[in-house]
């Protein structure tokens, strides 16, 4: 049912920036294919179905003088499904970009964090890169169920680097994602079975630090702009 004033949003699966076997041996071609073409595609397909349902006008119970309660209940369930699937879509879209084929020097590829503002910030907040890696890994391993581990930048309050975990397909709302790692079992099970720690150990070889640097710069800009705005506005309060 097309609404000519508000076109129904349509989602598409983003292409991988590299071949399915490009992250071998750290992440297998089999996993990449399933993860991208089945799991991520699943979120996209679900989203498109949900949008069609949400576009339908609510049914009104004229005798009761209010929205039909069953219809309302259906919509609430649809909302939950929408948040789950949009989270899955956004998280995975970010994920493909923050992976890259392994390189020895981190140029045009993944695996090495070169000197720069991101590296300085990691040292500032975690002492050194290894300590950051260990903290990230143990936080991510500690997730009891499905979820994601993130190196984030608070773009609102402190502007600092933090490691945050989210559950299921929840998205970061108050944080700007720098690096995200999918710790749902489908992300590693075929290759690493239950040995999550080995998956985390290996994925560092294909983390796209150049992308992370770009996100860090953008986050920093947003944070500075936000801070300027609040400083400018605070004089007129009180």
């Amino acid at each position: 049912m097309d609404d000519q004033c508000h076109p129904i949003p349509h989602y598409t699966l983003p292409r991988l920036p590299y071949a399915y076997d490009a992250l071998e041996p750290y992440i297998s071609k089999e996993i990449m294919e399933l993860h991208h073409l089945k799991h991520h595609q699943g979120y996209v397909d679900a989203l498109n179905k949900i949008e069609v349902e949400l576009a339908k006008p609510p049914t009104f119970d004229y005798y009761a003088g209010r929205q039909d309660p069953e219809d309302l209940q259906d919509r609430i369930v649809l909302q939950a499904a929408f948040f789950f699937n949009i989270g899955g879509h956004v998280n995975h879209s970010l994920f493909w970009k923050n992976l890259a084929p392994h390189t020895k020097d981190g140029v045009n590829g993944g695996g090495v964090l070169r000197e720069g503002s991101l590296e300085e910030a990691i040292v500032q907040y975690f002492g050194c890169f290894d300590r950051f890696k260990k903290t990230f890994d143990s936080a991510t391993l500690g997730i009891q169920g499905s979820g994601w581990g993130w190196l984030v930048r608070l773009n609102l309050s402190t502007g600092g680097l933090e490691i945050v975990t989210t559950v299921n397909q929840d998205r970061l709302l108050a944080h700007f994602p720098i690096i995200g790692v999918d710790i749902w079992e489908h992300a590693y099970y075929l290759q690493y079975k239950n040995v999550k720690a080995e998956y985390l150990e290996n994925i560092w070889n294909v983390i796209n630090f150049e992308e992370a640097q770009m996100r860090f710069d953008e986050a920093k800009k947003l944070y500075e702009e936000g801070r300027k705005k609040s400083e400018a506005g605070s004089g007129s309060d009180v």
Partner: protein
Amino acid sequence: MLSIARNSLRHTINRMFVARSAHQVEWTFQALEPHISEQIMKLHYTKHHQTYVNGLNAAEEAYAKTPSTKEKIALQSALKFNGGGHINHSLFWKNLSPVNEDGGKLSQGPLKDALERDFGSVDEFKKRFNAATAAIQGSGWGWLGYNPATQKLEIVTTPNQDPLISHAPIIGVDIWEHAFYLQYLNAIWNVINFKEAEHRFLEAAE
């Protein structure tokens, strides 16, 4: 002496897959083939379930040792996660059985009657169960549970490793990806142990 007493309270995995005779040890993991592969059963039992048991023992030991209330509260999530994982998987192994031991077969009886009464038909129950578990957003378990308040059979899901508390568990299905990922989309209904399910139902309905 105290350590001996303490050790006797440690949890162990319900010895479901130990041989009834010495040379039968290995075959039991493959007993649910082709519906659930030997590889999955081995991993699921010896790695995943074992990890919950180890985690539970560690958490309980820490809990018993500490006088600090704050520490005890901090240990709650480990107790819940690992305790739930142990309970759920222990129930799970019992409610599976090989096809040649009547896995998947639901004979006439009080359980079948109750399923038909509360869902219309056994097929309708399976359809609704599959839909409910497919809708779990993350990791969790799907249950056929007996609601003591309504005295009805109901389909319930629990997230992560939360145990089923609101209902008496009749059938539980592990929906964590590790339960099926190596053998994408297995047909678990072929190996559900309905005899065990009926036994649980009769106990709960008393």
